[in-house]
């Protein structure tokens, strides 16, 4: 096990790959591995890329990775694809589009499947980012289809979140408004050479302007206390600095707009540093991680306790027969846990 950690820290690609496998499988010992790796992290810039299927995420990520490599930076990519709800199987096809980095081991591309019911995808992704960070990657890109709550959680592991919007998705954009639009720090209208791209940019711009007030109350939250200068294009009604997400147009398969996109990412990075927001984000992330782990572990304890009582079915029978009720059942199952906690607290 320590061999694996040593191998990873020494820059062995197969060790890094195996660590991520252990993380995905929750193999015995994976927690110790993360614990060992954690102190070696905190250096990578983490970028989340999300958007609807077919928006061109993988193609853009490929070109972005190549551009970072040109600047002498090393890159890790985690690409998440859905898994079949029936077989649990998956075809992970994003690798196909990584042609610009073929044969370049310093772009470490890893496909992950949502693995259906496991429910811990965001934990697994966070841990995989930890592994890539500890390995020494300068930039880590997490790419996922933006469709549901899970994905929103995942992109929150990122310092900067880019949302891709394909042209002609006017109605989709409307739907995205409530969720995806709020998480974007940078918006990308990819396939900008297609008809309707201008219109999409226009719609997006309007929507972002309209939602600016609600953004400030939400995830992007607390208006920035520091700094008086406002970034270009933002309305200067507020003295304190806020971030107005830029809209970048790209044609990823031809590499157009990639430089502007990277510039936008780096602008946002500067903003995070300047306003002290990076630190606050990191703190929130750690808090969320601790809470998630706590919840998962407590769930595990409770599942064990349920098993000890002969599984949930007996309770269901009793409740359905109106012999008892769900609240009483929960009290009964949790009683020993409460007793234990009380005891240790008093001691």
């Amino acid at each position, binding site marked *: 096990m320590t061999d694996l950690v040593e191998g990873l820290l020494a820059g*062995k*690609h*197969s060790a890094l*790959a*195996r660590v*991520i*496998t252990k993380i*995905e*499988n929750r193999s015995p010992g994976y927690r110790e591995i993360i614990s060992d790796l954690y102190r070696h992290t905190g250096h990578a810039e983490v970028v989340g890329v999300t958007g609807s299927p077919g928006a061109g995420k993988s193609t853009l990520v490929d070109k972005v990775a190549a551009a970072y490599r040109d600047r002498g930076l090393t890159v890790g990519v985690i690409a998440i694809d859905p*898994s*079949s*709800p*029936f*077989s*649990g*199987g*998956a*075809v*992970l*096809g994003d*690798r*196909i589009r990584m*042609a610009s980095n*073929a*044969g*370049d*081991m310093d772009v*470490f*591309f*890893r*496909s992950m*499947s949502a*693995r*259906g*019911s*496991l429910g811990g995808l965001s934990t697994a992704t966070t841990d995989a980012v930890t592994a890539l960070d500890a390995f020494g990657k300068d930039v880590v890109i997490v790419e996922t289809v933006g469709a549901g709550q899970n994905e929103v959680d995942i992109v929150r592991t990122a310092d900067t979140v880019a949302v891709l919007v394909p042209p002609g998705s006017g109605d989709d954009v409307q739907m995205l408004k409530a969720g995806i639009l709020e998480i974007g720090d940078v918006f990308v209208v990819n396939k900008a050479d297609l008809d309707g791209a201008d219109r999409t940019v226009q719609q997006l711009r309007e929507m972002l302007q309209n939602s600016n007030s609600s953004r400030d109350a939400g995830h992007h939250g607390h208006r920035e206390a520091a700094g008086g200068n406002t970034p270009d294009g933002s309305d200067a009604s507020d003295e304190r600095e806020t971030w107005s997400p830029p809209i970048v147009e790209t044609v990823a398969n031809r590499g157009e707009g990639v430089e502007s996109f990277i510039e936008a990412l780096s602008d946002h990075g500067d903003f995070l540093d300047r306003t002290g927001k990076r630190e606050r984000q990191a703190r929130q992330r750690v808090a969320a991680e601790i809470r998630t782990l706590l919840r998962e572990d407590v769930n595990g304890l409770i599942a064990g306790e349920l098993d000890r009582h002969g599984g949930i079915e007996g309770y269901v029978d009793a409740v359905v027969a109106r012999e008892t009720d769900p609240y009483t059942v929960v009290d009964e199952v949790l009683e020993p846990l409460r007793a234990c906690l009380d005891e240790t607290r008093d001691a």
Partner: protein
Amino acid sequence: MSVEQEQAERTIRCLVAKVGLDGHDRGAHVIARALRDAGFEVIYSGLHRAPEEVVQAAVQEDVDVVGISILSGAHNTLVPKILDGLREYDAFDDRLVLVGGIVPDDDKDELREQGVDEIFGPGASMDEMIAYIHEHAPER
């Protein structure tokens, strides 16, 4: 079968790779889908991959099975390069290497000798292949 039961065992990861100039990938698509339906995670390489790219994918994705589909007759040149690459990255021993496609009998022995675990020719059934993988996927 529920996904929960499926999760109880380790998820097997397979790379389905097309290497060289061979431009026929319908078979590879069929196999990728069948493996997916069998509950495996399948990474498809796309067409026209160089041996180094196949190695890169096999290492980074930490697959249990490297499946190379090749119909062009270039297996004697390309497959050994992949095997060497896997060895170079310490990624050969605990991986199953399968070749699918058109391989003459004489070449089969040669490939096996070099480290290919099994070769599935035309007419091989999907069930056979899936059973083989279940049986031989290396313990980790």
